[in-house]
């Protein structure tokens, strides 16, 4: 149970370096800037503001999460300081748990601080209708960021080849964030032998497949708390039960936990 020390050291290291402060500044600029600028882009209501903010974070937060996490384990492993760390009474599990917690804090503290500020600015500018559930939005965003921290740290544990980690994390970002909708449509087209009518009338199970993308899950969670435009297909009439908000919650947790579990199962057995 020494993971607290590892996590504390990880956070302190990060706060002494410039990275954390750059992150905070960037996120504040982004979210508060959007809160100010939203009135030029869409309806001046609070849900519409959240809708735009969700789209903005959906694209940017994964990049930051991946950047925070993808060097976490492999850097210590290749530089040799992992040997020193493990010669203390830390087990590998403590090390990994501490790293995950530390990196999560490094990502989430600035994110949540910036978003709280943005929420206050947004409520002041666009009224407080529907703003009561703002903590739910923070929770959904935190889970979304954690999903990518899990992916990045999991990859970082699985190998020592830098190239694979870089390719894996940024390939993962590309597939899961940028290309997920296209991938989903392409799969459905190929399965239905290029009968394009399937895209207009998706079968039920493919909604779950689409929801499995972290970005879609995030939007579904936001939709569960607020009256936003996004994720409309999951709340349409006749949508199956298993694309409800709890499914999105479970999927995001799985995106966090499964890569970590896979990475750890390799890391535990690896020769350092």
């Amino acid at each position, binding site marked *: 149970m020494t993971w607290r020390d590892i996590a504390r050291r990880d956070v302190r290291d990060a706060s002494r370096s410039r990275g954390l402060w750059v992150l905070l500044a960037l996120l504040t600029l982004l979210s508060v800037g959007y809160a100010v600028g939203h009135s030029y882009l869409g309806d001046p209501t609070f849900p519409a503001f959240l809708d735009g903010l969700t789209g903005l974070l959906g694209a940017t937060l994964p990049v930051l999460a991946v950047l925070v996490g993808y060097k976490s384990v492999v850097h210590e492993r290749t530089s040799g300081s992992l040997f020193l760390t493990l010669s203390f009474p830390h087990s590998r599990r403590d090390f990994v748990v501490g790293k995950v917690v530390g990196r999560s804090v490094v990502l989430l503290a600035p994110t949540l601080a910036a978003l709280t500020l943005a929420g206050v600015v947004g409520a002041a500018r666009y009224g407080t209708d529907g703003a009561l559930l703002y903590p739910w939005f923070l929770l959904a965003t935190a889970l979304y960021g954690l999903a990518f921290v899990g992916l990045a740290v999991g990859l970082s544990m699985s190998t020592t080849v830098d190239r694979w980690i870089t390719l894996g994390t940024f390939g993962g970002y590309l597939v899961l964030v940028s290309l997920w909708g296209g991938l989903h449509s392409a799969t459905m087209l190929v*399965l239905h*032998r290029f009968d394009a009518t*399937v895209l207009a009338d998706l*079968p039920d199970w493919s909604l779950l497949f689409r929801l499995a993308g972290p970005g879609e899950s995030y939007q579904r969670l936001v939709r569960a708390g607020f009256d936003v435009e996004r994720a409309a297909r999951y709340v349409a009439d006749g949508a199956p039960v298993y694309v409800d908000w709890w499914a999105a919650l479970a999927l995001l947790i799985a995106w966090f936990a499964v890569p970590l579990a896979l990475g750890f199962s390799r890391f535990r057995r690896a020769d350092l």
Partner: protein
Amino acid sequence: MTWRVVARQDVSAAVGTRSAKLLLGVLAAAVVMLGYMYPITGPDPITTAHFPAFVTGTLTTLVPFVGLLLSYSAVASERESGSIRLRLCLPESRASVVLGKLCSRAGLVTAGLVGSLLLAGALVVYPFGDLLLPRFLGFLALAALFGVVWSALGVAVSLAASTRRRALVLGFGVVFLFAVVWDTAVDALRLGLTAAGLIDGELPGALQFLVGLSPGRLFGRVTTGFVTPNASVEGPWYLGEWVALAVLVLWAVGPLGLAYWRFERSDLS
């Protein structure tokens, strides 16, 4: 029980080779591709029970090549290099070596065939077709038997020849005869007899039985008789599906048994 050791060692050696990957990959790709094409191009109704009639033609051409090429060198290469003599110094009998080799090679072919057929079946069912499970499972069993027949023929060839090269030539001869020229030769025979005025377009029953003895034709007949709904094989009882199944089993055991009988008595030096 030493055949298990032989089989396990042989599988782990064979799986890694490039030729095995290539052969099984070609077979699997062809079968999955057919499963993908069938719902668009096949005749109605689209079901997993009608799908076998769509694939048998391809299987009767591909499986002989894959089965024989995967197994022709099973024993012959060890015999050529001499390592079989070392192996037989261990407490392994000739029978357990042959049984182990057969299990490993036939297992590879069967696993590849059944796995790709399962995937193809899933592609047939989703999104346009219907699942008729018992008949499809029956077809999987028949396809596995067909794979075993050709692996057994390959091992038989491998036992009968003393070097790899001879085994390859012999094996290609067998494949060429039964999978390539058989149908053409039968057609030529039919046309010739018709032209000579002896028959009117149809071979007599006894001759049909004789030309139907090739593994591919037997496989087609058991598929039609057991799997395809509302279809039956025509003709007298000896052209029926049960006789065909029995002869197919005989193909799996007979040549291998003969070759083993010869191998057991041969000098391996």
